[in-house]
């Protein structure tokens, strides 16, 4: 008979209670993991940011646009390798529920600055040749069942009305975490509409994405760009792509802090569930522990048995929770693919789950161990189970 066998037999002594404890822990671990995955997904844009790209926007807010003419002036700045630009479109497909990110962009440079979006050369050729052509991500195409050659109509919200497009390309991500839910079309198509519908507001862009020759010079080049447009009608703010993405994330910082607090509270719930079980176990085993000591078992034997039982339950709960997390995150990833493309629990989250379960098990065993060691053998033997 091995000690592990005794530990597992002890743990399974009250099968229903052990099962409910493991299930409770598993659900708590899954909830903790899901929240951490939400937080992780929230930062996806910042993680994907390339260190050799900086972004220039209006100094007042991203809501204000910059003149198209800035492009050539930015290109002249030392250290700038390439410049592209984009505008937020903000439409939907058929129903407002069908929301996804759409960008009108300078197609000749966009895919050079963003090489992580991979498009077949023949698709790129047909896309470039057609004014209302569009390239969509593989995930987006799968979501709506779009194929190359499909004609689709988007409903504009900022630029109101029906917008007809033809799908001419489907991109895939170079990396596993590249967002494959985006919708790219020609800037000219949008600008023509603006020139026609809102005369005087054309030839403006939402932001510039700039490829630089040395990531170590990002601050210096950013400062040079902003200096170039000092005292102009549209002053600029240039920052690294990561900082640019983080500025969006910071808008939701209260939500993220709230989620983090909830995730820690879940650890507290796990601890209470586990402590409750172990305290009940300790109470039931007073005479048994005293009897073990009568046989000659030492304090460290009891510590091993109690700690082992706590770890057995806690780690099983943790493992089951991680399995549930994997399954549920796949469902959530499909349901929230628009908002959180690539929603998937990362290695760190899994590590936090199992380490959390481990620590909770350790802490939960402290009181029962203390109780088992403190009580005198003769007092323990008097307790009737």
């Amino acid at each position, binding site marked *: *008979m091995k000690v592990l066998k005794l530990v597992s037999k002890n743990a399974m002594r009250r099968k229903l209670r052990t099962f409910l404890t493991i299930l409770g822990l598993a659900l708590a671990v899954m909830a903790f993991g899901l929240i951490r995955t939400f937080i992780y997904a929230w930062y996806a844009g910042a993680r994907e940011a390339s260190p050799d790209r900086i972004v220039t926007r209006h100094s007042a807010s991203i809501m204000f646009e910059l003149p198209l003419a800035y492009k050539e002036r930015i290109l002249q700045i030392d250290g700038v390798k390439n410049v592209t630009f984009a505008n937020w479109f903000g439409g939907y497909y058929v129903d407002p529920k069908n929301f996804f990110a759409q960008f009108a962009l300078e197609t000749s440079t966009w895919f050079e600055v963003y090489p992580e979006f991979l498009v077949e050369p023949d698709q790129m050729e047909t896309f470039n040749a057609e004014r209302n052509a569009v390239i969509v991500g593989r995930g987006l195409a799968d979501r709506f069942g779009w194929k190359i050659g499909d004609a689709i109509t988007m409903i504009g919200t900022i630029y109101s009305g029906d917008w007809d497009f033809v799908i001419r390309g489907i991109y895939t991500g170079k990396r596993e975490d590249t967002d494959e839910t985006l919708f790219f079309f020609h800037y000219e198509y949008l600008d023509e509409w603006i020139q026609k519908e809102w005369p005087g507001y054309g030839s403006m862009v939402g932001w510039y994405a700039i490829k630089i020759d040395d990531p170590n010079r990002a601050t210096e080049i950013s400062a040079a760009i902003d200096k170039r447009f000092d005292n102009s009608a549209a002053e600029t703010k240039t920052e690294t792509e990561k900082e640019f993405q983080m500025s969006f994330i910071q808008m939701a910082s209260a939500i993220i802090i709230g989620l983090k607090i909830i995730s820690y509270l879940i650890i507290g719930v796990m601890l209470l569930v586990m402590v409750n079980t172990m305290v009940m176990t300790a109470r039931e085993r007073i*005479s*048994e522990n005293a009897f073990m*000591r009568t046989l*000659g078992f*030492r304090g460290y034997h009891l510590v091993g048995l109690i700690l082992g039982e706590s770890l057995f339950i806690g780690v099983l709960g943790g493992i089951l929770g991680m399995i549930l997390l994997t399954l549920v995150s796949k469902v959530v990833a499909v349901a929230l693919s628009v908002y959180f493309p690539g929603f998937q629990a990362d290695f760190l989250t899994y590590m936090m789950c199992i380490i959390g379960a481990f620590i909770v098990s350790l802490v939960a065993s402290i009181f029962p161990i203390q109780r088992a060691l403190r009580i005198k053998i003769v007092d323990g033997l008097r307790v009737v189970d």
Partner: protein
Amino acid sequence: MPEPIVKVVNVSKSYYRDVLEIPVLHDINLDVHEGQFMALMGPSGSGKTTLLNLLAGIDQPTAGTLSVAGEDISHLNEGDLAKWRARHIGFVFQFYNLMPVLTAFENVELPLLLTSLSRRERKEHVEAALSIVGLADRMDHYPRQLSGGQEQRVAIARAIVSDPTLILADEPTGDLDKQSAEEILTLLSRLNTEYKKTIIMVTHDPRAAETAQITRHLDKGELDG
């Protein structure tokens, strides 16, 4: 006359409730020789179990000395006492104290986990002990699958499996029906006569005490004679 295997000299034991002293045993002197089967009788509260606990090394006297198997256990620390108990004492409780999650075999094997015996040697010892108590065919049964008498026999097998110097039995028939009680007493008697085991048994039951060779009476913490 050889040295007694158990020598109790001027032992007293008191418990304390806050500052109030509650004397339980007064100036006890007792010798038990190897191979003896002694019954300790007395009314409830007379100190029988307290004396047995002192002999088992699970409690310490307030005064006096206790030697078992030539070793003074009155001043051993907790760790040394645990080692000493594992080597010298086999304990039989009134309520058997079997682990419900372990089979009869595993329950009997428990004390051997503290020894350096190999798995095969442990198996041989356990099978031998269970054969002695007549439960060789029940070794895979759990306590809940056994009668009270059979549970107590498993407990006796556990008490003898490590071949201890002394077997201490605290009301071993107290929870059993008449027939089972007689079987247990017969078994204890056999252990004493056939296997030369030294046994000290606490009991209320005069018929149980008759099984022993010597009967000593405790009353209000004092031993007769």
